[in-house]
């Protein structure tokens, strides 16, 4: 009974925290486009917060630069359970164009934190990001919430 109630509430209210780990900012702009009235993220019950302590979903963009290697793990540790990570764009997946020989990016992100959903594209369309959050978000959070940690 209580679990069912929690599930419903968790599904209908997802807080999203955007972490940009050093990329070209194209994906961040696509996320901002998602917030705009045209795509209107909040109609799905998704809210963007700047505080990782309040977040359910961490959106990671960027190719993980030297400065971000330890900080990414620290931010992930601050997110309360249940939490899921969505990697947005090609940078957190493969390093993309920054992953050249002799470059100092440390992609993929999955080396540092567990990634639940991936959106490839450079940058992905806002609708692709939305679809990834919605497909991974509510059910995964509900499922993870029931797990005894």
């Amino acid at each position, binding site marked *: 009974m209580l679990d069912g109630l929690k599930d419903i509430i968790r599904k209908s209210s997802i807080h999203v925290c955007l972490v940009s780990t050093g990329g070209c900012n194209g994906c961040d702009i696509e996320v901002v486009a998602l917030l705009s009235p045209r795509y209107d993220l909040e*109609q799905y019950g998704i809210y963007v917060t700047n505080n990782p302590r309040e977040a359910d979903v961490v959106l990671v963009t960027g190719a993980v630069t030297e400065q971000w290697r330890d900080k990414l793990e620290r931010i992930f540790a601050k997110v309360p359970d249940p939490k899921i990570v969505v990697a947005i764009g090609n940078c957190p997946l*493969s390093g*993309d164009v920054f992953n050249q*020989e002799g470059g100092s990016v440390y992609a993929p992100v999955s080396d540092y934190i567990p990634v639940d959903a991936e959106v*490839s594209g450079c940058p992905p369309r806002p609708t692709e990001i939305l679809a990834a959050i919605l497909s991974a978000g509510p059910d995964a959070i509900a499922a993870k919430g029931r797990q005894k940690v």
Partner: protein
Amino acid sequence: MSSVIWYLYEFARKSWAEKFTAAKTDSEIMEVPSRFRDFPEVRKEYCIACGACTAACPAPMAIKLVRTSDSAHEDGITYPVINNRGCIRCGFCAEVCPTDPKTLLCGENHLIREEFTILPVDKMFVIDDYLCIRCKKCLKACSEVAGAISEVDKKMVIDQSKCIGCGECIKNCPVKGAVKGIYINNVEEQKEIINMVVDTLEARIEADQDKIKKLAPEEVYKIDYPIDDLVKKAREIIPNDELIRDSIEKITDRLKMRILTWDDEKCTNCRLCTSECPSGAITYDKEKGVQRNPDKCLKCSICYQTCPFGVAGLYVARFLLSDTSLKDGVIQITLKPSQLPIRS
């Protein structure tokens, strides 16, 4: 008051309540538009394994060429594999793919094919728009070859893919140099000939320095230079008489040479020029005085403009080939004192 009533009326309507409860983004916005350039689509069967896509790809891990293993009956096929986690959807791979139909499809891209003529011609004809007077005589002369010369944007243009290299246009052109016949092959040899001719002509003029120094400001100095020995040397480089004649004619038409003379007797060792010289060709030595090294000289004319005593003399040489036959052709050299003002 009336606006409040209007709002109450508006909110009371059923359609408003329906819209309010089912507020969603238009499905049209959520759909991917047809113009969107998605990840490339690979059609394995057309691939010729040229590797152009991998060379054009800006992302390090987006495209890989793979080859399936050979079976007893057939050789394995090679085809590109797109890694969606690296691909940035730029479409360069589809643009450079040379197969027809294309192996890679990505948005609306078009292959730009370089124009070339399949005929074995050694000369390429080009119209110099700067000299062209648009008399269209070449167009009339070229009437047998459809579309080889055409007027584009009020400019006469030769279509290299249709030109058969007959040279009728150059014969009918009334302006010398408006239509240019360029030899496509033997570029290195042509360079060698040009250097050789220019060096010889310069040496010939330098030999007459003493006479040139005495020229009055408005006087013109003339030298006739027979081209036999130039032709003899050029034939050693490449034994193609037509090319040699063409090159020498083009050189004499276009060459304008600066000649710098140096009169040591006038020099007072004031050393104004030594600091001005950009290449360090002019040096000062306590015993020898101011010295000029002709090999380092760029003929930039700065020393000529600086020197208050007229030590440096600047002359401009022009050339004309009087007879185009290789046997008794003579290059007429005309030397004039430069009109450049001397700084004061």
